[in-house]
């Protein structure tokens, strides 16, 4: 009985409201656009000395790097879209967005969707001035998409597919069949020592250090800056 009364009251209230709306109209005042533009976040890196201490670059090199970085991203942070756009400029033949996505995740150590200059420079320091072990660890983290410490076949297939996407369509010899899969099979054959279907960091480092060609290729990029 009580429920009936309350329902009746609600009904009457609703009716009164709709009548009021009918008479006075339903125009609501314009909501103030309080969308605070979050994109104007500005970030300044730590001091030059601190960065010099933390990385293996000289002051001069850091200056050159920062100038280039700031030119492209005046706000001081790179978000994923900008990053993909920049990376795609270097590979006009194909689609570099997937690989750029994985690269972005590899550089974004704080996982907040943007790369600050410090992250950028730390990553570069590892890649260019780090020891072989550090480089290999970085590469392992790049391949290990879900950061569980193992490179599974699926993760590797995705990475290899992303690399092949960058080649585009017009290649010689033409990409027929599942070329990435064959590539991944070859990779696992080489890397997966105990044949358990996943590659751990130690297996990876060991296998790479055995490979003379690869070691030599890694030294190739010393003089990039």
């Amino acid at each position, binding site marked *: 009985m009580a429920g009936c009364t309350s329902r009746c009251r609600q009904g009457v209230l609703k009716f009164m409201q709709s009548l009021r709306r009918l008479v006075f109209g339903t125009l609501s005042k314009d909501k103030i656009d309080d969308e605070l533009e979050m994109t104007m976040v500005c970030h300044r890196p730590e001091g030059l000395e601190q960065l010099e201490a933390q990385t293996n670059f000289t002051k001069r090199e850091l200056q050159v790097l920062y100038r280039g970085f700031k030119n492209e991203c005046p706000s001081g942070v790179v978000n994923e879209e900008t990053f993909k756009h920049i990376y795609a400029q270097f590979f006009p033949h194909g689609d570099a967005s997937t690989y750029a996505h994985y690269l972005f995740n590899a550089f974004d150590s704080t996982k907040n969707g943007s790369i600050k200059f410090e992250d950028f420079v730390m990553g570069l320091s590892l890649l260019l001035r780090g020891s072989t072990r550090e*480089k290999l660890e970085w590469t392992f983290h790049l391949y290990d998409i879900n950061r569980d410490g193992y490179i599974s076949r699926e993760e590797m297939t995705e990475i290899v597919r992303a690399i092949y996407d960058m080649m585009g369509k017009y290649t*010689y010899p033409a990409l027929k069949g599942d070329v990435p899969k064959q590539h991944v099979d070859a990779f696992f054959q080489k890397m997966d020592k105990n044949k358990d279907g996943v590659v751990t960091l130690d297996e*990876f480092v060991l296998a790479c250090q055995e*490979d003379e060609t690869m070691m030599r290729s890694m030294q190739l990029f010393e003089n990039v800056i």
Partner: protein
Amino acid sequence: MASGVAAWLPFARAAAIGWMPVANCPMPIAPRDHSKRKDELIILNVSGRRFQTWRTTLERYPDTLLGSSEKEFFYNEEAKEYFFDRDPDAFRSVLNFYRTGKLHYPRYECISAYDEELAFFGIIPEIIGDCCYEEYKDRKRENAERLMDDQEENKDAKLPNMTFRETMWRAFENPHTSTMALVFYYVTGFFIAISVITNVVETVPCGYKSQKDVPCGERYTVAFFCMDTACVMIFTVEYLLRLFAAPSRYRFMRSVMSIIDVVAILPYYIGLVMTDNEDVSGAFVTLRVFRVFRIFKFSRHSQGLRILGYTLKSCASELGFLLFSLTMAIIIFATVMFYAEKGSSSSKFTSIPASFWYTIVTMTTLGYGDMVPKTIAGKIFGSICSLSGVLVIALPVPVIVSNFSRIYHQNQRADKRRAQKKARLARIRIAKKGSTTAYLQTKRNGLLNELLDLTASEVEQQHLNKTSSLLESQHHHLLHCLEKTTGHEFVDEQLFEQNCLEGALQPYRSHSRTPSASSQDGPTGTCCSRRSKRGSTPVPNASQPHMLTHTLPQSPGLQELSAINIQCAEQQLHGSSRSNLNMQTNEVDRRNTRQQQQQVTTAIISVQTPSTGSSASDEDHDHGLGLPSVVTTASSNVIKVSAL
């Protein structure tokens, strides 16, 4: 490559380390920065105003004046600066382009002066940023039109080789071209007017005949008939002439104007054919209505009518919506009025469709008064009907009117922009293709350079290295690494298509290759096995390494269709090549040289013995038979080392 992101190239190259573990083949050597210049400030003195910037900023765009060595022509030794005798205000935009990668067009600048500055500094206007591009294009078009007005007298000059038919068509479409056309234009216009007036006057009552008002048409039958005949004659002749002169007769016959023409003159002929039968004369009279369509023939003479028709067509959806909402309201109110007035006697609202008339007349506030409600309910609903009519009609109409003008202007501008966009995109695509083909071209030349690196003197090496900037060579090295990682090469579209075609023929040809090469298959990556296959075709010897480019005689073994196709595609050769024999030999040579150099490169990277130089020269001295064995060792070295 957008050189605006040149600063990120070191990063992209560093990130290439991520490809190393996956790579099938060894990586190429990185280009060396021979002149390791430290980044220095350079001073640009433009008519006294000094601008300063980093050297690397300018070098981002090596195909412009400031980015290339062309600026050395303007170098002032005493003051250690570059002096340009140009406008410093315009130079600001030019320099900002280097800094930000975006070219802006300042509004205060004169368009032709700006164009001259851009041309001087070697910057193409197409890269003006989106923010300023439309303004730039508008100003440019205005300017062009202004200049064109001066030349318009020559525009209508008769082209000497136009056929009679084309002349006639042009005369029809554009009456101002010749006096005859103008005369024809006015004559037809006059006759259209006469015809319309005759149709109107035909029905005016004039005079009496047997106590009955008789329209003029029946009184002066012969006169009107003669008039009608004359008009129809003229119209028929005109239509036939247009049909004859039209470039595409089928398209002309489908066009609206020609349909109007036909509809205008058909009733006359049908009337001629039909006899004076009682049954059909009623239908014949109806046909006469179509004569009024002659008035539409005026639209050829009036630009305004055409525009009106076009805007109506483009506002069709708004008009449609108006009609739909009106129909809804009419039906609602007619139903209500019908049921409201059902009770009253002698009511004119006999049915709902009958009430439609009342509703329409009331809603459009016409109020003829031939149907009025008598009951109170009817009057109430009638007043609601008229009020809502005002609202329903008054509200959309201004929207439609403003839509007219907006859509009209928008259509004009959209067409313009669409035309610009297509051309613009085409140009950007060409530039982009240029950057992708730049890599392919450099690859071909680069292999040449690598060979010469080993053997040529320092001077020649410097000279050849200067042809591409350091940035470009680094970028190309990056792309080369990607090729090596995946074991596939970049090719351009035509090559790709040819390869696809050739791919069908491939299985039949592979059997003819030497077995030694095919035994290398399996563990070796695709790149290496392909190269060894190629190497198995007999390659003639050469006397000295650096003469490779131009002393190889024709090789008979290379008559395969695929090879020749690919050779034909590789036509573009730079002046840096030192061979000057005819093209045919060169193509063959390049193919051989390329294969050899690929093998040479492979050998160098994987073997890394101190006898590299000698092994290369040894290889060159080898006969064709010897080559597969060298290839064998090279490939087997690769197998050993990479253990894939």
